[in-house]
């Protein structure tokens, strides 16, 4: 199993009241950006990733969001390029570059090739469509999001594999001279892991391309459904999916004592947490989702990653309650904080309590890639690093043993899609739903 470290690199200094007032992280005015603090933070987060390497994580994962203190990685390839040089062992995993938002796949092919070369082959490229708010920030037309995603991806693969120069005329992108001089260090190109939250289309696309699908803190029951869907699609394509096809990323925070962990772990709901990533009107711009996806959203209430939910879709109609009673908002967030822990959506505690919880996640979801997502909110560098150390020293070794024991092969050990299967036999289960009922999860 590959064990990764991930942080959103939150800008931790916006007063919570401002986030409440704005009802979201996205669109908080950048007059709250303090250049000195920003400078300190960018440097600290790079150091933090080096510390992850030192502690024995296999990978560090970066992502990208725009116009938000939720995540400072506005241009993640910049950070990836620096890490390529200042680390020496960890895989640098991008989850991922928002292709339809960046709208320049040739430039992307060049940037990633440079990063892979500088790191001597440690890059894992990943692609995303970009959250709804990204479409606003970059004026990227959501109606063409998936088309642009597919075309940019296919183009980048070509740019890395087909000797140039050649001319390209696609629907959304055109290049008269494709001949990127620098090609990736890894042959034929870096592995790709694809993060996702809810879209069946993306899961199907991953199965077709034999890319590992990394669930971003998706609810446990629906994740099982999603991975069964992947495995069914894989079988249609002639291969047996296994742990190497799946990854799971989950908010995790540890402290020496249970009380301290519970206190600081509240950072995950600071300012509303993930559900306050963007306001409803910025979450799902018209055209971003397929008809089928809108139908699914309209049916299935409940929160999810980056606050995309049917409740949110309806929120506009039903009003937003008392927006100025922040104590009430905080109380509600505390309830949500407890609920999320019960649902295994937040893993918080001392090493003693965290280990069995993660083992359960591994048992049920059987991922070949497991990534911890560091706490958000105003938690000090020292406390963040303590959490990392406790995880690496007191949890990780046992997780590695357990992963080996239950056969969680990762995509480095076994190439995803390399185990053939006939269409008329029953496939091997990819998840273990047994423990769900006892945990009150479906």
């Amino acid at each position: 199993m590959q064990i990764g470290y991930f942080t959103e690199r939150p800008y931790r200094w916006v007063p919570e009241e401002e986030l409440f007032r704005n009802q979201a992280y996205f669109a908080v005015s950048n007059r709250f950006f303090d250049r000195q603090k920003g400078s300190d933070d960018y440097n600290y987060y790079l150091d933090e990733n080096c510390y992850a390497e030192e502690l024995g994580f296999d990978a560090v994962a970066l992502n990208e969001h725009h116009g938000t203190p939720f995540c400072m990685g506005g241009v993640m390839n910049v950070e990836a390029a620096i890490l390529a040089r200042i680390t020496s062992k960890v895989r640098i995993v991008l989850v991922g570059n928002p292709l339809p938002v960046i709208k320049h796949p040739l430039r992307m092919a060049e940037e990633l090739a440079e990063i892979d070369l500088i790191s001597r082959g440690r890059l894992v490229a990943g692609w995303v469509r970009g959250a709804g708010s990204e479409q606003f920030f970059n004026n990227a037309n959501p109606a063409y999001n998936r088309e642009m995603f597919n075309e940019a991806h296919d183009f980048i693969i070509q740019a890395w594999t087909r000797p140039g120069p050649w001319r390209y005329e696609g629907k959304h992108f055109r290049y008269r001279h494709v001949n990127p001089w620098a090609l990736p260090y890894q042959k034929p190109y870096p592995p790709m892991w694809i993060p996702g939250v809810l879209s069946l289309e993306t899961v199907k696309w991953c199965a077709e391309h034999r890319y590992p699908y990394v669930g971003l803190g998706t609810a446990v029951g629906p994740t099982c459904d999603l991975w069964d869907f992947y495995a069914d699609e894989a079988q249609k394509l002639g291969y047996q999916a296994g742990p190497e096809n799946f990854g799971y990323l989950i908010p995790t925070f540890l402290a020496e004592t249970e009380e301290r962990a519970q206190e600081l772990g509240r950072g995950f709901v600071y300012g509303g947490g993930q559900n306050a990533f963007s306001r409803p009107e910025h979450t799902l711009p018209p055209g971003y989702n397929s008809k089928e996806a809108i139908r699914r959203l309209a049916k299935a209430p409940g929160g999810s990653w980056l606050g995309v939910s049917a409740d949110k879709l309806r929120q506009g109609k039903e009003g937003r309650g008392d927006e100025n009673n922040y104590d009430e908002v905080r109380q509600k967030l505390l309830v949500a904080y407890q609920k999320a822990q019960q649902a295994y959506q937040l893993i918080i505690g001392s090493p003693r309590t965290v280990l069995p919880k993660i083992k359960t996640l591994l048992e049920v979801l059987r991922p070949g890639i497991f990534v911890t997502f560091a706490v958000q909110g105003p938690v000090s560098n020292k406390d963040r690093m303590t959490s990392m150390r406790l995880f690496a020293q007191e949890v990780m070794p046992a997780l590695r043993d357990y992963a080996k024991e239950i056969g969680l092969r990762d995509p480095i050990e076994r190439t995803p899609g390399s185990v053939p299967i006939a269409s008329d036999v029953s496939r091997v289960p990819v998840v273990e739903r047994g423990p769900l009922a006892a945990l009150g999860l479906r």
Partner: protein
Amino acid sequence: MNGLQTLNLRNGRFNVKYYREGSGAPLVFLHGAGGLPAFTPDLEALAKHFAVTAPLHPGFGTSGEENLHEDVLALTLYAWDLLDALGIEQPILVGHSFGGMLAAEMAALDPRRVKKLILVAPAGLYLEGCPTADFFAMMPDQLVRAAFFDPGSQLARAFVELPEDKRMAEEVMIQRVRGLGAAGRFLWPLGDRGLNERLYRVKAPTLLLWGEGDRIIPAAYAEKFRELLENSAEVKIETIPQAGHLVLMEQMEAATHAIVQFCAR
């Protein structure tokens, strides 16, 4: 939908749905980004004076929006192809909002063919210091507050209310999002898609009809349109009080009366 007719256009690339009612001079109504849920009372009023044809745009009930790739010219040619197929030669073109932008584009592309041009709070231009509201970033309640002069009116509430039946409500939600998504193919990039460079070609007498309290495309845009319509035989601005962006709905009588009067001259 009641009274909808169907037409196959360009070898089935577009399955066009349209309303056709009334008699008299041909008037083509091009709806806005909210779609056209029925042959609405304002169209009924116009149908007392004109042969009204009101097509649903691709993505709003008409299929084939994927054939119109972000290109305003493709959309404009599609609209003229449709009128060719319907045998409408010299229409009075009435367009609201997104449909207003389309009507203006049509009149610029084929100026001799438009008898009169009526732009009701049209999209398509950008006025520095007075940006149009970004209705792609609005939830239904916000949209109603922006689109109606009186968001508390029964009309406004009916506009945002979902049907009781869950399935119907789901369909309505999907239609709304789909329709906005379809309009987004052309309007998402925001502001001006090049219309300012083409308006000089319009020859038809033009009525710019605005709700005084329009919070989506402020009435100040009327002057900008007038300035750029330098070769129109006539440009008249008419501002209707007690009306917002949905002026045809909110002040149906005054608005349709203005259209009928302008066409009678």
